[in-house]
Protein backbone atom coordinates (compact mmCIF):
# COMPACT_ATOMS: atom_id res chain seq x y z
CA UNK A 1 0.00 0.00 0.00
CA UNK A 2 1.34 3.41 -0.90
CA UNK A 3 -0.48 6.34 0.64
CA UNK A 4 -0.76 9.59 -1.26
CA UNK A 5 1.42 12.36 0.17
CA UNK A 6 -1.69 14.29 1.18
CA UNK A 7 -2.99 11.37 3.28
CA UNK A 8 0.36 10.90 4.96
CA UNK A 9 0.73 14.62 5.71
CA UNK A 10 -2.83 14.65 7.06
CA UNK A 11 -2.00 11.78 9.42
CA UNK A 12 1.10 13.64 10.60
CA UNK A 13 -0.90 16.81 11.20
CA UNK A 14 -3.89 15.19 12.86
CA UNK A 15 -1.76 13.01 15.16
CA UNK A 16 0.47 15.95 16.08
CA UNK A 17 -2.48 18.20 16.86
CA UNK A 18 -4.49 15.46 18.59
CA UNK A 19 -1.58 14.68 20.91
CA UNK A 20 -2.50 17.92 22.72
CA UNK A 21 -5.90 19.28 21.69
CA UNK A 22 -5.37 22.46 23.76
CA UNK A 23 -2.29 23.37 21.77
CA UNK A 24 -2.29 25.46 18.62
CA UNK A 25 0.34 24.86 16.00
CA UNK A 26 1.07 26.61 12.72
CA UNK A 27 1.50 24.73 9.46
CA UNK A 28 5.21 25.61 9.66
CA UNK A 29 5.50 24.13 13.17
CA UNK A 30 4.08 20.82 11.97
CA UNK A 31 5.93 20.81 8.65
CA UNK A 32 9.25 21.43 10.42
CA UNK A 33 8.63 18.58 12.88
CA UNK A 34 8.15 16.09 10.07
CA UNK A 35 10.49 17.60 7.46
CA UNK A 36 7.72 18.14 4.91
CA UNK A 37 6.62 20.97 2.65
CA UNK A 38 4.69 23.73 4.47
CA UNK A 39 2.98 24.69 1.24
CA UNK A 40 1.66 21.17 0.65
CA UNK A 41 0.71 20.78 4.30
CA UNK A 42 -1.25 24.06 4.27
CA UNK A 43 -3.46 22.65 1.48
CA UNK A 44 -3.97 19.45 3.47
CA UNK A 45 -4.89 21.44 6.58
CA UNK A 46 -7.58 23.28 4.63
CA UNK A 47 -9.24 19.94 3.88
CA UNK A 48 -8.91 18.90 7.51
CA UNK A 49 -10.55 22.15 8.61
CA UNK A 50 -13.45 21.56 6.20
CA UNK A 51 -13.87 18.05 7.63
CA UNK A 52 -14.23 19.43 11.16
CA UNK A 53 -11.29 17.47 12.53
CA UNK A 54 -9.19 20.60 12.82
CA UNK A 55 -10.03 24.22 13.54
CA UNK A 56 -8.11 27.17 12.15
CA UNK A 57 -7.55 29.79 14.83
CA UNK A 58 -7.00 33.20 13.33
CA UNK A 59 -5.06 36.16 14.66
CA UNK A 60 -1.75 36.60 16.43
CA UNK A 61 -0.62 33.30 17.94
CA UNK A 62 -3.18 31.56 15.77
CA UNK A 63 -2.71 28.25 14.13
CA UNK A 64 -4.50 24.94 14.01
CA UNK A 65 -6.10 22.97 16.79
CA UNK A 66 -7.58 19.46 16.89
CA UNK A 67 -11.34 19.46 17.35
CA UNK A 68 -12.20 15.84 16.60
CA UNK A 69 -12.71 12.93 18.97
CA UNK A 70 -9.53 10.92 19.37
CA UNK A 71 -11.18 7.65 20.38
CA UNK A 72 -13.78 7.85 17.63
CA UNK A 73 -11.64 8.89 14.67
CA UNK A 74 -9.69 6.19 12.89
CA UNK A 75 -6.70 6.41 10.59
CA UNK A 76 -9.00 5.40 7.74
CA UNK A 77 -11.34 8.32 8.51
CA UNK A 78 -8.43 10.69 7.94
CA UNK A 79 -7.07 8.91 4.86
CA UNK A 80 -10.45 8.76 3.16
CA UNK A 81 -10.65 12.54 3.19
CA UNK A 82 -7.94 12.42 0.55
CA UNK A 83 -8.20 9.12 -1.30
CA UNK A 84 -10.10 5.90 -1.57
CA UNK A 85 -8.04 2.85 -0.81
CA UNK A 86 -9.43 0.72 -3.58
CA UNK A 87 -6.77 -0.95 -5.68
CA UNK A 88 -6.84 0.19 -9.26
CA UNK A 89 -6.36 -2.55 -11.79
CA UNK A 90 -5.73 -0.79 -15.01
CA UNK A 91 -6.99 -3.74 -17.00
CA UNK A 92 -7.87 -3.38 -20.68
CA UNK A 93 -11.17 -4.82 -21.91
CA UNK A 94 -10.65 -8.56 -22.30
CA UNK A 95 -11.03 -10.11 -25.75
CA UNK A 96 -12.10 -13.56 -24.67
CA UNK A 97 -13.73 -15.44 -21.84
CA UNK A 98 -10.38 -16.70 -20.52
CA UNK A 99 -9.06 -13.14 -20.25
CA UNK A 100 -12.22 -12.05 -18.51
CA UNK A 101 -11.86 -14.81 -15.92
CA UNK A 102 -8.24 -13.87 -15.19
CA UNK A 103 -9.12 -10.21 -14.80
CA UNK A 104 -12.03 -11.06 -12.51
CA UNK A 105 -9.76 -13.27 -10.41
CA UNK A 106 -7.14 -10.52 -10.09
CA UNK A 107 -9.87 -8.03 -9.18
CA UNK A 108 -11.14 -10.41 -6.54
CA UNK A 109 -7.63 -10.73 -5.06
CA UNK A 110 -7.26 -6.94 -5.09
CA UNK A 111 -10.57 -6.61 -3.22
CA UNK A 112 -9.34 -9.12 -0.62
CA UNK A 113 -6.21 -7.02 -0.05
CA UNK A 114 -8.29 -3.82 0.09
CA UNK A 115 -10.61 -5.33 2.69
CA UNK A 116 -7.69 -6.34 4.89
CA UNK A 117 -6.03 -2.94 4.55
CA UNK A 118 -9.24 -1.17 5.48
CA UNK A 119 -9.93 -3.55 8.38
CA UNK A 120 -6.56 -2.55 9.86
CA UNK A 121 -6.79 1.18 9.26
CA UNK A 122 -10.43 1.45 10.29
CA UNK A 123 -9.82 -0.08 13.72
CA UNK A 124 -6.85 2.00 14.80
CA UNK A 125 -8.15 5.16 16.42
CA UNK A 126 -6.05 8.28 16.79
CA UNK A 127 -5.98 7.58 20.53
CA UNK A 128 -4.57 4.09 19.95
CA UNK A 129 -1.99 5.34 17.45
CA UNK A 130 -0.89 8.11 19.83
CA UNK A 131 -0.73 5.74 22.76
CA UNK A 132 1.44 3.30 20.77
CA UNK A 133 3.66 6.16 19.60
CA UNK A 134 4.18 7.31 23.19
CA UNK A 135 5.05 3.77 24.23
CA UNK A 136 7.51 3.56 21.34
CA UNK A 137 9.12 6.83 22.48
CA UNK A 138 9.36 5.58 26.07
CA UNK A 139 10.93 2.30 24.97
CA UNK A 140 13.40 4.13 22.73
CA UNK A 141 14.32 6.33 25.71
CA UNK A 142 15.01 3.26 27.84
CA UNK A 143 17.18 1.59 25.20
Amino acid at each position, binding site marked *: MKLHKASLFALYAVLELASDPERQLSATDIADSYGISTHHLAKVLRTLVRSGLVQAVRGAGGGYRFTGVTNRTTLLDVIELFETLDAELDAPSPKGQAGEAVIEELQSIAREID*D*LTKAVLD*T*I*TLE*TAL*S*SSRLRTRLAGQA
Partner: protein
Amino acid sequence: MTTQLTIRNALPSDFDAVVALDLVGDSDDKPAYWRGIFDRYVTTDQTGGFFLVAEISGEVIGFIVGEVRAWEFGSPPCGWVFALSVAPKSREMGVGELMFKEICRYLKQAGVTTVRTMVDRKNKLTLSFFRSQGLRTGRYIELEKPIDNS
Protein backbone atom coordinates in the same frame (compact mmCIF):
# COMPACT_ATOMS: atom_id res chain seq x y z
CA MET B 1 -16.80 3.74 38.87
CA THR B 2 -13.85 1.41 38.50
CA THR B 3 -13.27 1.54 42.30
CA GLN B 4 -16.54 -0.40 42.77
CA LEU B 5 -15.69 -2.82 40.03
CA THR B 6 -14.70 -6.37 40.88
CA ILE B 7 -13.11 -8.81 38.46
CA ARG B 8 -13.59 -12.35 39.70
CA ASN B 9 -13.78 -15.91 38.49
CA ALA B 10 -17.15 -16.79 37.00
CA LEU B 11 -19.56 -18.85 39.09
CA PRO B 12 -22.24 -21.28 37.88
CA SER B 13 -24.82 -18.72 39.01
CA ASP B 14 -23.47 -16.21 36.42
CA PHE B 15 -24.80 -18.34 33.55
CA ASP B 16 -27.93 -16.30 32.78
CA ALA B 17 -26.08 -12.98 33.02
CA VAL B 18 -23.35 -14.20 30.66
CA VAL B 19 -25.85 -15.50 28.12
CA ALA B 20 -27.72 -12.18 28.28
CA LEU B 21 -24.50 -10.19 27.79
CA ASP B 22 -23.53 -12.38 24.86
CA LEU B 23 -26.83 -11.54 23.17
CA VAL B 24 -26.19 -7.79 23.37
CA GLY B 25 -24.24 -7.77 20.10
CA ASP B 26 -25.20 -9.52 16.90
CA SER B 27 -24.52 -12.82 18.54
CA ASP B 28 -26.82 -15.80 18.03
CA ASP B 29 -28.60 -17.30 21.00
CA LYS B 30 -26.49 -20.34 21.89
CA PRO B 31 -27.26 -21.58 25.41
CA ALA B 32 -25.88 -25.06 24.67
CA TYR B 33 -22.53 -23.52 23.73
CA TRP B 34 -22.42 -21.52 26.96
CA ARG B 35 -23.46 -24.56 28.99
CA GLY B 36 -20.44 -26.36 27.53
CA ILE B 37 -18.14 -23.41 28.27
CA PHE B 38 -19.40 -23.22 31.86
CA ASP B 39 -18.97 -26.98 32.26
CA ARG B 40 -15.45 -26.73 30.97
CA TYR B 41 -14.17 -23.55 32.66
CA VAL B 42 -16.44 -22.85 35.63
CA THR B 43 -17.81 -26.02 37.16
CA THR B 44 -14.60 -27.97 36.62
CA ASP B 45 -11.15 -26.71 37.49
CA GLN B 46 -9.78 -26.52 33.97
CA THR B 47 -6.05 -25.88 34.11
CA GLY B 48 -5.03 -23.23 31.64
CA GLY B 49 -8.58 -21.90 31.15
CA PHE B 50 -9.90 -18.67 32.62
CA PHE B 51 -13.45 -17.36 32.76
CA LEU B 52 -13.70 -13.98 34.46
CA VAL B 53 -16.64 -11.68 35.04
CA ALA B 54 -16.79 -7.99 35.92
CA GLU B 55 -19.27 -7.12 38.60
CA ILE B 56 -20.59 -3.87 40.01
CA SER B 57 -22.89 -3.90 43.04
CA GLY B 58 -23.71 -7.56 42.49
CA GLU B 59 -24.52 -7.09 38.79
CA VAL B 60 -22.44 -8.88 36.15
CA ILE B 61 -21.62 -6.26 33.51
CA GLY B 62 -18.97 -8.05 31.52
CA PHE B 63 -17.09 -11.27 30.95
CA ILE B 64 -13.96 -12.54 29.28
CA VAL B 65 -12.93 -16.12 28.54
CA GLY B 66 -9.55 -17.43 27.51
CA GLU B 67 -7.24 -20.38 27.71
CA VAL B 68 -3.79 -21.61 26.89
CA ARG B 69 -3.64 -23.52 23.62
CA ALA B 70 -0.56 -25.34 22.49
CA TRP B 71 0.73 -26.57 19.16
CA GLU B 72 -2.41 -25.89 17.14
CA PHE B 73 -1.10 -25.35 13.60
CA GLY B 74 2.41 -25.63 15.02
CA SER B 75 2.00 -22.66 17.34
CA PRO B 76 3.91 -22.87 20.64
CA PRO B 77 1.76 -22.45 23.78
CA CYS B 78 -0.14 -19.19 23.55
CA GLY B 79 -3.01 -17.47 25.36
CA TRP B 80 -6.24 -17.22 23.46
CA VAL B 81 -9.06 -14.86 24.37
CA PHE B 82 -12.13 -16.23 22.64
CA ALA B 83 -15.05 -14.39 24.24
CA LEU B 84 -15.48 -10.88 25.56
CA SER B 85 -18.48 -8.71 26.23
CA VAL B 86 -19.29 -5.58 28.23
CA ALA B 87 -22.81 -4.29 28.82
CA PRO B 88 -23.42 -1.22 26.62
CA LYS B 89 -24.24 0.97 29.64
CA SER B 90 -20.86 0.11 31.18
CA ARG B 91 -18.68 0.68 28.11
CA GLU B 92 -15.92 3.28 27.84
CA MET B 93 -15.28 3.04 31.59
CA GLY B 94 -12.28 0.75 31.39
CA VAL B 95 -14.17 -2.48 32.21
CA GLY B 96 -12.92 -4.35 29.14
CA GLU B 97 -9.38 -3.14 29.73
CA LEU B 98 -9.40 -4.31 33.35
CA MET B 99 -10.77 -7.73 32.40
CA PHE B 100 -8.24 -8.06 29.59
CA LYS B 101 -5.34 -7.08 31.85
CA GLU B 102 -6.52 -9.56 34.47
CA ILE B 103 -6.81 -12.46 32.05
CA CYS B 104 -3.38 -11.58 30.63
CA ARG B 105 -2.02 -11.75 34.20
CA TYR B 106 -3.50 -15.24 34.58
CA LEU B 107 -2.20 -16.30 31.18
CA LYS B 108 1.27 -15.05 32.05
CA GLN B 109 1.16 -16.98 35.31
CA ALA B 110 0.24 -20.03 33.24
CA GLY B 111 3.52 -19.58 31.39
CA VAL B 112 2.64 -17.97 28.07
CA THR B 113 4.08 -14.76 26.71
CA THR B 114 1.69 -14.05 23.85
CA VAL B 115 -2.04 -13.48 23.79
CA ARG B 116 -4.06 -13.99 20.64
CA THR B 117 -7.65 -13.56 19.55
CA MET B 118 -9.77 -13.68 16.40
CA VAL B 119 -12.41 -11.10 15.53
CA ASP B 120 -14.78 -10.66 12.59
CA ARG B 121 -13.19 -7.95 10.48
CA LYS B 122 -16.53 -6.11 10.40
CA ASN B 123 -16.68 -5.99 14.20
CA LYS B 124 -15.06 -2.59 14.46
CA LEU B 125 -15.90 -2.12 18.14
CA THR B 126 -14.14 -5.26 19.33
CA LEU B 127 -11.27 -4.91 16.87
CA SER B 128 -10.68 -1.32 18.01
CA PHE B 129 -10.75 -2.48 21.61
CA PHE B 130 -8.09 -5.15 21.07
CA ARG B 131 -6.02 -2.70 19.03
CA SER B 132 -6.20 -0.24 21.93
CA GLN B 133 -4.77 -2.99 24.13
CA GLY B 134 -1.78 -3.29 21.83
CA LEU B 135 -2.75 -6.34 19.76
CA ARG B 136 -1.60 -6.30 16.15
CA THR B 137 -2.08 -8.59 13.17
CA GLY B 138 -0.30 -11.79 14.11
CA ARG B 139 1.85 -14.22 12.17
CA TYR B 140 -1.00 -16.65 11.42
CA ILE B 141 -3.53 -15.95 8.70
CA GLU B 142 -7.02 -17.37 8.95
CA LEU B 143 -8.21 -18.84 5.65
CA GLU B 144 -11.62 -20.22 4.79
CA LYS B 145 -13.91 -21.19 1.91
CA PRO B 146 -17.47 -22.37 1.50
CA ILE B 147 -17.45 -26.11 0.96
CA ASP B 148 -20.86 -26.49 -0.67
CA ASN B 149 -19.79 -26.08 -4.29
CA SER B 150 -16.13 -27.04 -4.30
